C-alpha cells in the first residue's frame, strides 16, 4: 500500500537514514504547507476572475458563430 521509492542519490548527502521515515512533526508541517501552497496557487488564478475571451466565446456560441 505505502510505496516508498528509494531516492538514489540523496542518502550519501543528507542525514536521513537509508530506510527513510519522515519525522512526524516535520511531516505535519509540510502537510500544512502543501495545503497552503495548493490553495495559494489555486486562489492566484481564481482571483483573476473570468477573462474576456470566455465571455466573448459564449456570446459567439450563443449567436451560433462557433467557438474556434
Amino acid at each position, binding site marked *: 500500500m505505502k510505496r516508498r521509492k528509494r531516492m538514489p*542519490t540523496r542518502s550519501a548527502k*543528507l542525514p536521513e537514514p537509508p530506510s527513510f521515515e519522515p519525522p512526524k512533526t516535520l*511531516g505535519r508541517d*509540510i*502537510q500544512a504547507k502543501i495545503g497552503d501552497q495548493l490553495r495559494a496557487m*489555486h486562489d492566484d*488564478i481564481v482571483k483573476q476572475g473570468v477573462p474576456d475571451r*470566455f465571455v466573448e466565446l459564449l456570446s459567439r456560441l*450563443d449567436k451560433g458563430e462557433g467557438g474556434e
Partner: protein
Amino acid sequence: MPIDPTLREGMLAAVPRLRAFAVSLSGNVDRADDLVQETLVRALTSIDSFRPGTNLAAWLFTILRNHFRSEYRKRRREVEDVEGRHTESLRSQPEQMGHVEMAEFREALAKLPPDQREALILVGASGFSYEEAAEICGCAVGTIKSRLNRARNRLTDLMQIESGEDFGPDAATRAILTDRDTGT
C-alpha cells in the same frame, strides 16, 4: 445555438476554478485557457447529457479532465517540455522568495503522476468532496483517497528535500541532489 441564460451564468461562474484546475494540470496558463475554452465548447455541444439540477461545476470539471487526459496521452512529450520550462523560470528569478517557493511547489507538483495530481487539486484546492472528485475522475472514492495519500507522501518527500536546503543556494543544492555523475 442559443444558450440558456442560467446555464451561461453557471458556466462563467465556474471558469475561474476551471482555469485554476487546468493550470495545475497543464502547468501553463495559455494551455489552461485553451483547455477551458475547449471544455466550454464541448459542454455546449453535449449539453443534452447534462442533467439540470445536478452539479454543473463537477460536470464541467469532468469534461476538462477527460479532455486533458486524452491530450496528455497524445502530447506527453510536450507536457514534459512544459515542466522543463518551470525549472527554467525558477532559476531565472532567484531573489523573489515567494515566487521561488511557489515555483518549487509547482515543480514538485509536476513530478506527481497525473492521477495523483488531479486528486490532490480537486480535493485540496478546488473544494470538491471525495465523492465529487471520484465522479469527476471516474473512479471509486477509495481510489481517490489512496491517490491523495500517495500524492501527499510523495510531495512531503519532495518538499523535505527542499527544506533541507537552508544551507546553500538553491541551484547548487539541487545540483548535488540530482547529481548524475558523481564520479567526474
